[in-house]
Every structure is written in structure tokens, then in C-alpha cells.
């Protein structure tokens, strides 16, 4: 099986090399963009035009999706074409564009990303806004606990944009914890961030220290895990997505943890699956939780995506 896959990969590379480099005299950026886009379309790669644009822009040194336009009349060097070739091969193998570029933007910051650490999603940008709005207007010092920072997108955005904030981030994956620390150093935010490695269930905290708990926990339902696109199932750590049968396997322990370590007036902000605002309340009642959902907020696709919880 592995040998068949290997042979298929070699065949793809040969076909690609033959077709791609046959007109190498047209090394212009626009010409290469068109051929790359056509290649992706032929091979049914999702977002063929946008993938090509991101890759071309990266090759010419721009982090903007349309950065290639500034160099549209120019030709790429041999090294640049080689680099482009490598990235295109990766995309054909369904590697996410973000991993190919090695970096992605999230609100006002740029983060390094690499497999298998979970890539920040655009919906989560709104989760950060909810927390910032909740804290704005108060000049007090705030302590925030984040569960599962991944690449550090949430905690580092809060530190960058908020005022008087300190964050403790609990991460079960060593690779993700290291990446969060690396991104914090790169952004100069490491002094106000403490990354701890461990699981939610094992986190020992008896003192009510935190004003806010925030998390984008694994919340995908097991049935949906089966039908994920290859970009996700092949390259991202599925532990960052798998929420168990009902998607609440990590959500519930976070709310339980809050009973001990969240201040009396503290709030929990979570990103969840659209079904959770409906199936969570009876589960909370079942376990006798002190918390309830104060409000549900929709995302930019008009789906129930965020919940704010507080003590009853």
C-alpha cells in the first residue's frame, strides 16, 4: 500500500516536472501564475487560483495574497522557480497553503505555523474580539487562562491588543507548546505569557486566580471527523479537533476546571460546534455544573459559534 502510494507520488512528480517546465522560457510571474492555477484545477486541488496566488506572492517575498501583482512584469530567477516547483508539489499533495508558506496572519499578528500544529481559523479571530470587548473599559490587571493555544494565536493576540493582561496557556502537545513559545519570543510577548505542558484533567489549580478562561478546544463531533478534507486529516493533529462522540470531551472538563480556578465574576469564552449551544445546557445540568450559558454569538457565516458562560 505504502509502495503504491510512493510510486503514485513519484509519477505525479514526473508528470508535473514535464508539464510545468516545458515552457520555462516564460518565467514571468503572471505566466507562472496562470500555469500553476491550471495545474491545480486539472488535479482538482481546492482553491486553485488562490493557492497559486499565495504561493507566487510568497516566492516574490510578499505576505499579501495579491503581493505577486507588484512583480507581474518581472521574471523569476532559477532559484525562485525551483522554490515555486517545490511548493506546488506540496500543494498537489494537499498540504495546506499555510504549512507551505510556514506562516499565517491572525488579526494584527503574524505567526509561524508547521505541521502538525493546528492552523488558526478565521472564526477564532472573533473569539479574541469577544474577550477584548469584555475586558475593555477596565484598567485593572487581568489574568487569563487559555486551554490549548496551538500556535498561540489567541493568547498572543490578546497580549498584543489588550492592556494589562497576563496569560497562562495550558497545552497537551509539546510541539504546540514549543511553537507558542517560539511565536511569543518572535513577537516580544514572552514576558507576559507562561506556557504549561499538560492536559486539562491533570491541571492542578485550587485558587480562583483567573478573570477569564478562553479556549478553542477540540470540538468536532466524531461523525464529522470522518469527512474532513485531506488538508486537515493528513497534516493537522487530529487531537486538536476530536471532541469525541458529542464534541464535548474537552469542553466539559474546561467548564469543570473553571469551578476551581475562575474568579466569582469570571467568564468563560469558548469556540464550539453549532450544535453545542443546544446540547450543552442539559449536559451541564446533568453534572450539576455551577455554570450556564449567558449568551451565544454567531460567527461571520451566521452559525452559532461562540458561547459565554458564567456562574448562575
Amino acid at each position, binding site marked *: 500500500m505504502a509502495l503504491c502510494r510512493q510510486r503514485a507520488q513519484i509519477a505525479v512528480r514526473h508528470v508535473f516536472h514535464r508539464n510545468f517546465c516545458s515552457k520555462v522560457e516564460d518565467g514571468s510571474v503572471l505566466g507562472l501564475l496562470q500555469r500553476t492555477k491550471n495545474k491545480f484545477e486539472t488535479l482538482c486541488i481546492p482553491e486553485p487560483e488562490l493557492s497559486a496566488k499565495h504561493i507566487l506572492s510568497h516566492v516574490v517575498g510578499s505576505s*499579501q495574497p495579491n503581493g505577486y501583482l507588484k512583480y507581474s512584469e518581472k521574471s523569476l530567477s532559477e532559484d525562485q522557480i525551483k522554490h515555486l516547483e517545490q511548493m506546488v508539489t506540496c500543494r498537489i499533495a494537499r498540504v495546506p497553503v499555510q504549512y507551505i508558506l510556514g506562516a499565517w*496572519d491572525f488579526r494584527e499578528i503574524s505567526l509561524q505555523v508547521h505541521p502538525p500544529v493546528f492552523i488558526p481559523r478565521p472564526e477564532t479571530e472573533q473569539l479574541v474580539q469577544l474577550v477584548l470587548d469584555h475586558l475593555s473599559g477596565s484598567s485593572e490587571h487581568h489574568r487569563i487562562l487559555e486551554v490549548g493555544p496551538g500556535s498561540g494565536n489567541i493568547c498572543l493576540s490578546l497580549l498584543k491588543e489588550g492592556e494589562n493582561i497576563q496569560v497562562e496557556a495550558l497545552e497537551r502537545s509539546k510541539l504546540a507548546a514549543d511553537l507558542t513559545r517560539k511565536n511569543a519570543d518572535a513577537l516580544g510577548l514572552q514576558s507576559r505569557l507562561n506556557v504549561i505542558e499538560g492536559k486539562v484533567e491533570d491541571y492542578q489549580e485550587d485558587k480562583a486566580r483567573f478573570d477569564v478562561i478562553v479556549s478553542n478546544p477540540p470540538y468536532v463531533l466524531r461523525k*464529522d471527523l470522518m469527512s474532513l478534507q485531506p488538508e486537515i486529516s493528513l497534516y493537522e493533529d487530529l487531537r486538536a479537533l476530536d471532541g469525541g462522540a458529542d464534541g464535548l470531551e474537552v469542553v466539559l472538563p474546561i467548564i469543570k476546571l473553571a469551578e476551581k480556578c475562575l474568579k466569582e465574576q469570571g467568564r468563560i469564552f469558548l469556540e464550539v460546534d453549532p450544535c453545542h449551544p443546544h446540547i450543552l445546557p442539559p449536559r451541564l445540568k446533568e453534572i450539576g455544573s455551577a455554570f450556564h450559558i449567558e449568551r451565544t454569538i454567531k*460567527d461571520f457565516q451566521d452559525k452559532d459559534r461562540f458561547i459565554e458562560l458564567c456562574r448562575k
Partner: protein
Amino acid sequence: MISVLARRAVQCGQFARGIRIDRSLFPSINEEDLEEKYVKGGGPGGQAVNKTSNAVFLKHQPSGIWVKCHDSRSLESNRKQARKLLLTKLDNHINGENSIENQVKKFESLKKAKSKEKTRAKYEKKREEKESNTDDTDKVMTDSVKIDTNVVPKEAND
């Protein structure tokens, strides 16, 4: 809130150039008047989807003016930038030559014309100086080789 911030950003952005701009006509927009659209993702969305399109389409309902922004890889950045672009477009539409953008353009073209005129005058002055120097040199040259054409050389008569 995001519209208020965008408005302030566009207004103050011109101030940094140190020129006097009339901002009294600059429009404001209400979030309720805006129609915002994004590239539709399929299925449950959120964690279950990986898409790289964070383009924002923004339309101001009362005026019908719209913009599309995909300058950044971040959705929030594109939302903010789309509002700035929309405000500028609305300002140009409502206020014509009195919009902030057109006032700046006018100032800059006047500045350019002034600089061009200054350079032209400087060149003209240099040219005149050079010409007057040449006239003086010709006069000196003529004095030193002045020939009396009425005198016939003595040797010719012997």
C-alpha cells in the same frame, strides 16, 4: 465600533503629512447600514474547514457604494481595511473635490507644480548667467586682436 475606528484612521492619516485639510465634510457610516459578505464555506465550518480565502465584500446600503478587500491573510484585517476603503470611496462620492483624498491630491499637485517652477526658474537663471559670461569673454577677445585695416605694410612699396 470597527467603523468608528476606521473613520478615525482615515481622517488622522492625512494629518500626519502636516497639511491643513478640511475634515468637516468627512462622512460617517453606521454598522447597521453595511452589508458584509464573505466567501462561503461549506459544511459545519470552524475547525472542520481549512480555507485561505478571507476576502471581504462590503456594501453601504444607503448609497450603494461597495468595496472588496483581500489585502491581508487575516479576516479581521480585511474587515477593517474594507471599512477604510469604503469611507474613502464614500467621501469621494459625496464631497467630490472637497474629499480628504482629493484635497491631498490637489495639495500634492500644487506642490509638484511649485517645485517644477522653482527648478525651471533656477535653470533659467543659470542659463542667463552663462550667456552674460559668454558676451563679456567675446568683448575681451575682440580688443586684443584689433587690426587697423587702413595701414598698408611698408615692404609692399619697395
